[in-house]
């Protein structure tokens, strides 16, 4: 694997922009095509590309198996926690209107957190699947 300089350099250039694009899709979700799911896939794609080019061992230094396993439930917890928060504030489950004095901003805020939860779970799940397949041969 000494002749893959192009690959290494190219991917090193692309990786930050992938993450940036993921964040763009994430925050753009309320207005246009996009949202937590797509963003999660893209950010997971970034990690997978890194692992393919630089090896799983290095990838696991950045995102260890343990962290992946932690993030899967964490995302769900963020999602559900938002719902529970609205309940604690006296409204029905996932009724975001209460999260801000202005109901519209409240909804925006609620959807944002829900999307964050989706992002975390989707990204970590994809990564977990990838790790699982890669580990199989060992």
């Amino acid at each position: 694997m000494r002749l893959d300089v192009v690959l290494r350099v190219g991917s090193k250039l692309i990786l930050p922009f992938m993450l940036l694009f993921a964040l763009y899709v994430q925050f753009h979700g309320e207005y246009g095509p996009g949202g937590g799911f797509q963003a999660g896939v893209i950010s997971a794609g970034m990690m997978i590309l890194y692992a393919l080019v630089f090896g799983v061992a290095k990838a696991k230094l950045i995102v260890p198996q343990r962290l992946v396993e932690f993030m899967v439930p964490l995302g769900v917890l963020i999602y559900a926690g938002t719902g529970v928060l609205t309940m604690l504030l006296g409204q029905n489950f996932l009724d975001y209107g209460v999260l801000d004095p202005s109901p519209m901003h409240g909804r925006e805020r609620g959807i944002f957190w829900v999307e964050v939860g989706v992002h975390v779970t989707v990204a970590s799940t994809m990564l977990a699947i990838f790790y699982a397949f890669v580990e199989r041969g060992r």
Partner: protein
Amino acid sequence: MSALESQLPILQVIVPLVGAVLVALMRGGRSAWAVALVITWTMPVISILLMRKVLATGPISYHLGGWAPPIGIEYRVDLLAAFVLVLVSVVGAALMPFARRSVASEIDGDKQVWFYTMYLLCLAGLLGITITADAFNLFVFLEISSLATYVLIALGRDRRALLAAYQYLIMGTIGATFYVIGVGLLYLVTGSLNIYDIASRLADPAMQNPRPVMAALAFIVVGISLKLALFPLHVWLPGAYAHAPSFASAFLAGTATKVAIYVLIRFAFSVFGVAISFETLPLTEVLVVLSLAAMFIASIIAVFETNLKRMLAYSSLGQVGYITLGIALANTQGLTGGIVHLLNHALMKTALFMALGAIAYRLGSVKLDAIAGIGRRMPWTMAVFVLGGMALVGVPGTAGFVSKWYLAIGAVEKGWWPLVFAILISSLIAVVYVGRVVEVAWFREPSPAVEKCTDPPLSMLIPMLVLTAATIYFGIDTEASAGMALKAAETLLGGLK
């Protein structure tokens, strides 16, 4: 408090869902078990509170996210739903003390956390199916519970469990797909996903074109029949139950098929209504034939089965036949029999599977030949088995008798005498397969392996005894079970004729 009270419907689903997440964050089997125990034990509290509220003030409606139906997702608890919620949550909670040792002995240490996570997810799914009034949301919960179930089955050490889980996955997916196709057709015709909204639109005399509706009904009935393992769509079930870990078998036998039956009742009576379900499509005739086939064929298979878990699984198929028979009769008494048998069968079958789990825990095998003489070494466990078996047979004084009594009355009301005899004769087949086990367990000389067995620890024994006691209790005091089922049946039949 009242604010919390109004949130009960969503708590019923969200607590196990969040609980599953919390369990997944745990590091060891023991702490995972402890969290799961706390979570599952709040379930009956919530469901019983819901039940009381329904009894006091009528059906409860909860709007998710504050969006009113038919646009938003509605959770709706009526008497039948509350009945099934109590059933699922009580069985789920009663099993937990049993779980710790049983799971620890059958599942590798690092997988136990995932096992409990999946268990709570499955529980959340089943409760969600029961409580939601949104046909698509129901599909989502169906998938949540099904996916969790596949994992629960496959997590055991038994290699055959993988094949069984895989088969179940294929069949379950076909079933869910059929269901969602049916829901899609309904949406096409009515433009709504809320099942009560669909029902009222279907009841509109202006509904001129019933063809897609009939197709929708056919897809949904077949899809759900797969899930509830109605003959001849049952073949995935025995393998899945037999090779799953004991705890999973006990839980699934008590709840999974029951919730599927609930969905069938819900769609047949609440959504399509008696007129479409039973007159335009002759659901009665079809279900009677299939139920009878299940009652006899599955029961006779149970007679020849030598793996006791498989035997109980086949017996479950036969018992499902009784329930669908009650649905097919579509009169108050018959439907009451079907609904009350949901509860009764869940109690007795869970206890029976737990007894087998205890035997597997001590002996490591549930083969008929292996348990010779075990009645003398594990008297309490086998007493549970015998009493549960008697309830399966429908011996008077046990809950099984009450169900069969109502079914028989329902058949008589229709004037279908041969059905009464069919019910009675198939009960006799149950005598044979239960008697076989009793004979081997009590009247044979124990083998050296059996000699070393003793009754399991109290944490495993007490849940069994509690459920068995409930089986006997509901055989004597029928007010809480049959009385409730009767009211539910009257509502179902009276509401949307």
